Every structure is written in structure tokens, then in C-alpha cells.
């Protein structure tokens, strides 16, 4: 609760709304004891007095009645009516929703069809129809506004109830022999109360507005009684000669509704866990860079990553996803980057072209050099011109990574035309050719397909074709086969290998599967807890892994036919990168770990083969 209040007031606008609304409600409550003129006391000698006149702070209206007094009494009435309408709509709607959602089946069907019917009306129209029947009057306006809002509550609450009605504790209550009424009252209702409260707090502003509207039309409160809406309605005829009689009640409605809305939004946001974690932030066009110094290039390489550091900054927590990673990639070479989920391999790959989602991602150090030119912190336009043209990506799940609403042909054509000023027809021809290159049968027809019309393997071929569209020098493949089944996986790997040979592509291949690395990669780098722990030629590493982690990782790969190795999962979990232990990050899971492993910085040592381990399995 205190967290809730803290979150609510951290949102300054919500705090402002709470204060304004608090003052207004307090004034409304105190109205009967304030020294005011009676609201209906007419004095035709003092008609249309301006604000700040003697004895009338806000002036008087067309009958010489004190506006301040009428305003406060009207506010009292409007607040009461709006609140009552919200309460009635909330309770009735919740009752309908709970019953429909809990009993389901036919009850649900019939009720919800009825609700849908009501929702087919534009909703002020329905309120008008109801007032037409009941006759003008404040109580009738209240009923009308409450009734038209019932469907909204019924729908919301039904949805929530359906979710609850199938949970274990309801089944348990049923098995314990509790009756429906008791289950509803003791198990279901307590769980939906917060939802009803939120829905009410977000709609009460509307209800005040709507009843004011009906009163404005002359269908709500009848003279001499006046709520804010009818004050405005009465003042309309004198709009030009005495505008203050309109402005006073109008501004009050605006203030009430705005403060209610601000507060309602604040409550909703404070209760939304996604906002708390910052998960609703949108990633920017390029990853944010906060780099203090540029490390010197540590060697040659077509693509060189030097001491790259990428972090996720969520609130006060810092997740060091990539921690001083250095890699290099030569033309035509295939480098495998391997590790468990969360080891930082994908973040490393995405950092190259500034594609790490930011916020929360920040590149805090290191350099990424393409043909010697540093790309970290490069202007957006340079980065954009390199993306897809020099360095292309293939992502993991082709269903979510292809745009669901564009034809695959159009997505390919776009990829070509962003970098080359060719005609649409020419680009189309090349798109078909690309699809043929990745062995999509009947490519000329398939360009017109949408992603959801293709199989997973076909979609990934499209993903590859898109990466090849501009004949890039480097392809970064981020687990391109993980989402596919095994036979398709083999085909895709064969295709990538063939394309590499034919086009002289350099590939950075990210995977968690040593079997895949063995098939495709010249060299391999193993990542753990955001750092490289071992690197070397694939064959050497496979035959004699030096780091205990590498050894365990290789043991995870099932072997066809032979079966000489023991297939073993690695005990324990990968480390949380916001609280890495000192020393070797793998030490807690390593059965060879000594005290020395848990102290200080351990170097990545070696020449062609490097390992970050004090007690390597084999000498590097």
C-alpha cells in the first residue's frame, strides 16, 4: 500500500490531481456550513454582477443569485451524482459480469449478447432514449448515465472473472462442497474488487461529464435546483453579455473532470506492473552510448570488437550483459559465439549495429570497428547506411521478426530500395531472384505471400534472403535455427554454409548448440556471464575444451550413433548479471573450483586458443 502511494505521488500529475480534487471535495462537503448566500435567493436588482463585486465574489446570474454559492452547491450535486452513477454502474456491471463469467455457458452467452446489443448504440444516444422515457430530471439523468455505462463494467469484470473462475482455488472451494453463492462472495468477489475500483476511478470523470451534459441540455436537474451542467445551460443565453456566468461553472467541470482523470490515470499506472519495470519504454532508433574512453584496437580484423561493454540500466539496477568482450572476424570467416541464455551473446551481436533496445540498453564502453572505423557512437545516418548493406542480421524467430502485415516480397523490395535507388520493377525482379537463391520453391508466386502463410522453415529462408538483399560483407545470425525443427535446421545450416562459400560472406553465428558450431564455424568463442571464457579454432575446442564450462557445454550435445560421451545438463543456473560474483562467474557451478577462483580478476590468456581459467582442463 505504501509502495502504491509512493508510486502514485511520484507521478506528479496524479499528485496534482489528487490535491485539486481533494480541495474541491472538501469545499463541497463544507458548503452547508460556509457563510454563503442561499443559492436560490433571487435579487433582480443585482442581475449579472461581475465577479469581485461587493458581497458576491464570483458575481451573480440572470436572477441575481450569488454565483459562488450556486457553484459550490452545484459542485456538491454534480460530484454526488457522478459518484452515485459510477457506483451504480460499477455494482450492477460487476454483478452481471461476475455471474456471466462465473457460470459461463449459456448464462454467459445470453448475457453477453445482450450487453453487445447495448454497446451497438452510440452511448449518449442511449442515455437520451432513457431520459426520453423517464422524463427530464436529475435522478433520471443519473439512472440513464449509470445504465449506459453498465456494459463497460460488465464486459471488463466478466473477462477478469473468467480468468479467476478456472483457477485452482475455485475448484478447491467447489470440491470442499461450498455453494455457488458462498464461492462467489468469499472467493471471486474479493479478487475483482481492485479491478472494479480501477474501472470506476477511470470512468467517474466521464460520468460527471455526461450527467453535466444531460443537465446542460435541460434533461437533468430542473430549476431552481442546479448542478454544474444546468448552470452552464442556463447561462448560455447570456454567453455574450455576461460570459462569467458560463465560465464559472464550465471551469469547475473542467477542473473536476481533469483532476479525476489525472488521479485515475495515476492509480492505473501505479497498479500496472509493466510500468514499474519500465517494460513499456520504446526502444530508440539506435542504442544509447555513454562511453568515456575509446580503447585502442587490439589487432587486425575486418570486424573488430574491442572491450565492448553493454549494460541494461533498470532503475538503480545495472545488468552487465556484455562485459569487456573482444572478438574479431576476418572476411569469409565463420565465427561461432556460444553460450547459455542470458550469457550476453545476443546483446554482443546486437551492439555491433546499435540494435540493443534502449532504454534500458546502454553501451558504456569499448569499440566496434568495421574496416578500422569505429561505429560506437557513430551518427545515426552512418549507422543506418551500414545496417543491411555492410552488416546484415538474421534473427531467431522468423514469425515475430518479419512484419506480419507486409507481403514478403514488399519486405524484400524495401530492404533493397533503402540502400539502392533501383526501380520498383527491378527490385521486384531481384526479390524473386533472392527467394530462388534461398531455395524457396515457386518464388515468383511466393513474393505475394504474407509471413503467416509460410511454414517456419520458409519464413527463415525469407529472413536469410532479406539479409542477403544488399550483398553484405558480414551476416550476424542470432540463433537462426533455434525456433525450427531439426530437419529444417539442417537445411538452413547447409544453405548458410553454401551461401558463405559462394559469396565469401563473413558470419558471426550465435547459438547455444555446440553441434551447430561444429558443422559451420571455423572458430568459436564461448561466453559466460557476459564475458568470453574461451576461444579458439572449432576443432581444437571441440576435441580438447580448456574451460570447465566449455567442457560441460559440449557434453550437452547428444551424439548420433557413437554414444561414448555422457549427455549431461549443467547443474545450477547461469549467473544474474546484476550481481556477478568476484573472480570466475562459473565458479559456483564448477566442481573444480578452488578458493583462488573466487578472488580478483581472471585473465583471458593464450595465443590462438585463449581461456579464462586458473585450472584449465588442457593447457591452451
Amino acid at each position, binding site marked *: 500500500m505504501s509502495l502504491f502511494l509512493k508510486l502514485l505521488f511520484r507521478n506528479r500529475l496524479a499528485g496534482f490531481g489528487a490535491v485539486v480534487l481533494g480541495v474541491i471535495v472538501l469545499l463541497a462537503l463544507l458548503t452547508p456550513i460556509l457563510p454563503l448566500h442561499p443559492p436560490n435567493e433571487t435579487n433582480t436588482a443585482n442581475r449579472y454582477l461581475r465577479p469581485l463585486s461587493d458581497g458576491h465574489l464570483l458575481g451573480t446570474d440572470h436572477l441575481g443569485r450569488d454565483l459562488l454559492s450556486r457553484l459550490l452547491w452545484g459542485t456538491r450535486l454534480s460530484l454526488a451524482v457522478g459518484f452515485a452513477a459510477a457506483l451504480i454502474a460499477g455494482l450492477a456491471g460487476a454483478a452481471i459480469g461476475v455471474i456471466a463469467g462465473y457460470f459461463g455457458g449459456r448464462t454467459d452467452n445470453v448475457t453477453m*449478447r445482450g450487453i*453487445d446489443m447495448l454497446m*451497438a*448504440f*452510440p*452511448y449518449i*444516444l*442511449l442515455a*437520451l*432514449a432513457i*431520459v*426520453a*422515457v423517464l422524463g*427530464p430530471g436529475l435522478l433520471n439523468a443519473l439512472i440513464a448515465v449509470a445504465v449506459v455505462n453498465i456494459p463497460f463494467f460488465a464486459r471488463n469484470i466478466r473477462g477478469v472473472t473468467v480468468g479467476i473462475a478456472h483457477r485452482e482455488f475455485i475448484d478447491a472451494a467447489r470440491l470442499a462442497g461450498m455453494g455457488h453463492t458462498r464461492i462467489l462472495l468469499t472467493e471471486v468477489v474479493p479478487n475483482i474488487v481492485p479491478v472494479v475500483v480501477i474501472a470506476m476511478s477511470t470512468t467517474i470523470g466521464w460520468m460527471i*461529464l455526461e450527467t*453535466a*451534459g444531460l443537465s*446542460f441540455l435541460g*434533461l437533468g436537474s430542473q430549476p431552481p435546483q442546479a448542478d454544474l*451542467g444546468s448552470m452552464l445551460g442556463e447561462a*448560455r443565453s447570456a*454567453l*455574450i453579455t455576461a460570459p462569467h456566468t*458560463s*465560465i464559472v461553472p*464550465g471551469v469547475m*467541470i*473542467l477542473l473536476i*473532470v*481533469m483532476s479525476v*482523470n489525472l488521479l485515475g*490515470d495515476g492509480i492505473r499506472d501505479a497498479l500496472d506492473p509493466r510500468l514499474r519495470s519500465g517494460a*513499456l*519504454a*520504446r*526502444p530508440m*532508433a539506435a542504442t544509447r552510448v555513454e562511453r568515456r574512453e575509446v580503447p585502442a584496437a587490439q589487432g587486425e580484423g575486418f570486424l573488430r570488437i574491442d572491450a565492448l561493454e553493454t549494460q541494461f540500466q533498470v532503475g538503480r539496477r545495472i545488468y552487465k550483459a556484455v562485459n569487456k568482450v573482444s572478438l574479431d572476424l576476418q572476411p569469409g570467416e565463420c565465427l561461432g559465439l556460444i553460450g547459455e541464455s542470458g550469457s550476453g551473446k545476443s546483446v554482443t551481436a546486437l551492439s555491433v549495429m546499435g*540494435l540493443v*533496445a534502449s532504454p534500458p540498453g546502454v553501451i558504456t564502453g569499448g569499440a566496434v570497428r568495421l574496416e578500422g572505423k569505429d561505429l560506437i557512437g557513430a551518427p545515426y545516418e552512418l549507422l*543506418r*547506411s551500414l*545496417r*543491411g*548493406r555492410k552488416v*546484415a*542480421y538474421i*534473427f531467431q*524467430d522468423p514469425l*515475430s*521478426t518479419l*512484419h*506480419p*502485415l*507486409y507481403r514478403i516480397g514488399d519486405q524484400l523490395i524495401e*530492404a533493397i530500395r*533503402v*540502400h539502392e535507388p533501383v526501380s520498383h520493377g527491378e527490385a521486384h525482379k531481384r526479390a524473386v531472384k533472392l527467394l530462388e537463391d534461398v531455395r524457396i520453391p515457386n518464388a515468383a508466386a511466393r513474393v505475394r505471400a504474407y509471413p*503467416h502463410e509460410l511454414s517456419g522453415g520458409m519464413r527463415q529462408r525469407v529472413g536469410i534472403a*532479406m539479409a542477403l538483399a*544488399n550483398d553484405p560483407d558480414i551476416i550476424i545470425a542470432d540463433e537462426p535455427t533455434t525456433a525450427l525443427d531439426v530437419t529444417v535446421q539442417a537445411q538452413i545450416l547447409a544453405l548458410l554454409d553454401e551461401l558463405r562459400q559462394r559469396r565469401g560472406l563473413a558470419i558471426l553465428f550465435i547459438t547455444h548448440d555446440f553441434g551447430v558450431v561444429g558443422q559451420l564455424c571455423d572458430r568459436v568463442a564461448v561466453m559466460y556471464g557476459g564475458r568470453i571464457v574461451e576461444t579458439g579454432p572449432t576443432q581444437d575446442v571441440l576435441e580438447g575444451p580448456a574451460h570447465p564450462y566449455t567442457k560441460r557445454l559440449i557434453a550437452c550435445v547428444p551424439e548420433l550413433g557413437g554414444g561414448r560421451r555422457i549427455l549431461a545438463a549443467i547443474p545450477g543456473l547461469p549467473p544474474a548479471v546484476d550481481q556477478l560474483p568476484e573472480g570466475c562467474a562459473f565458479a559456483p557451478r564448477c566442481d573444480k573450483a578452488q578458493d583462488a577462483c573466487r578472488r580478483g580478476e581472471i585473465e583471458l590468456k593464450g595465443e590462438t586458443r585463449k581461456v579464462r581459467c586458473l585450472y584449465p582442463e588442457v593447457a591452451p
Partner: protein
Amino acid sequence: MGGYILKRLLSAIPVLLGITVIVFLIMAMIPGDPATAILGSYATPENVARLNRFLGLDEPLWRQYFIWLGNMLQGDFGRSFALNRPVLDEILDRFSATLILAGTAFVLCALLGVIAGTISAARQYGFADKAITFVVILGISVPSFFLGMMMILIFAVQLRWFPVSGMYSIWGGGDLPDLIRHLTMPAIALSVVATGVVARLSRGAMLEVLRQDFIRTARAKGVHERRVIWGHALRAAMVSIIPVLGIQAGFVLSGAVYIEMVFQWPGVGRMLVDAILKRDILLVQGGVVFIAACYVGFNIVVDVAQAWLDPRIKT
């Protein structure tokens, strides 16, 4: 596509029937009988009985409904006793004015709302986002009738940019520029709340979409950020924005009541309010059914637009 449209049209029939049932039942709940209302409280019982028979009110309720429905299907919505002319004629005369007003307001709210929401999302937490959010909150909190009155005060009375009220000038008006001059203020006043709602939901939908993987793919291809936002992301976000537009269309159509009162616009809304105050039941009944039916029709258009935009729906 043709099949989908047909299917959607057929599914509207039960909804339309449901609407007539609801309206009929609401109207049947009116206390007292219409004959007395028409003839006044000094009418003799014989005259009341005769008028009841003439109006078909001595029939059982369900037969009354089918007679009413049958008549409506033939274009006979009954006769307004206050105006002494066929209800449908009156509605059709008034409806074009409402359609011009609500249509303009709808286009405004759709365009401005989506654009503002998109900018807001693309610049999340930036200055533009904060400014738009503030204006939006103000917009959804202001009563449209109050806004309309203030606009009259400022732009018509003080600055004299626009006429105070009405749809055409009495002298020498009647052409399109004259209509536009009269239309500007009411259309804006009517669209403000809906624009706010659309902007808000567009911002939310865009933020949701911008985190999707296919946006990263577009960026990885080297697509320019402008196109990522206004092409890839907005296209996908429209899938959830369009239903909101459908709801707002209903809101604008019925919210026109207030604006028509404030600006003396000769539309259906003002007709309805007058009819309610005069207890001209047939006119209310006919007007409500007519507007609700239009709204159902518009929702079909929305669904078809949705299906056209999202190829995954059609199957």
C-alpha cells in the same frame, strides 16, 4: 474480401433487430399512454380509446412490435405529432447536417489523434510527448459544450473570425466556403475529446508495437527511422487503433447533440432533444433507431477496413 464483407453484412442483421427490440421496449415502458399525451389531459375517454385503436396501441405488445418493424422496413417511421410530418422526412432533412458535422469531426479526430499519438510514442518522455500528453488530458476533460461556448466567445465574438452559430448565412450564403466558415468551430469543438482519446490509445498501441521484433528487423535492414515509425510501426498499430476509431465514430455521432445545441446546428441531435422535451415519442424512437443503424453500418466499414489492413483476419 467480397465474402468477408457479405459475412459481415449478414451478421449485422441480428444486431439491427436487437436494436429495434431494445428501442421498442424502452419506449413501451413510458408511463401513461401516448394518446393522452397527444390529445391532452382534457380528452374524453372515448376519443382516447379511438386514437389508441387508430395508432394500433390496443394490440398486444409483440404484435405492436412487428407492425412497427414492418412499417419501418417499408420506410414508414410514423408521424411526428409535434411537427405534424412523417418522422423519416424530418430525420432525413436533419441527418445531412449532422453527418457533415460529425463526419468532419471524425476525420479531424482520426487524423490529429493518430498523428499526435504517434509523435508522442516516438518521442516518449521527450518534450513533444509531455506537451501532447498535457494537451490530451486537457482535451479529454473539457466538456465539449463548454469548449464550444468559449470558442464562440473568443473566435466569434471577440476576434470575429467565424460566425457565432448556424450552418449557413441567412443572406448571400449557402455555398461551400460559407459552410466551411460555419463548420470550423463546431467541428473542432466536437472533435476535441475524441482526438484526445484517439491520441492516447494510439500512443499506447505504438509503444506496444515499437517493442516488437519486426521493428528491430526493419531497423536492422537500414530502414530510415521515419519510415520505421510512420510505416512499419504505425501500420501494425493501426490494427488496434481502428476499433477505437469505430467507437469514437459513435461518440462523435451522438456527442453532436451538445454541439448542435451550442452552435444552433440544424441536426438530428437538436431534433432529438426537442422531441424529448415535447415528448414526441415516435420522433425519438425513429431518430434513435436511425442513428443506431447508421452506427452499425459504420462499424461494418470499420471491420472491413480492419480486415483489409490485417490479412490474418480474413480467413
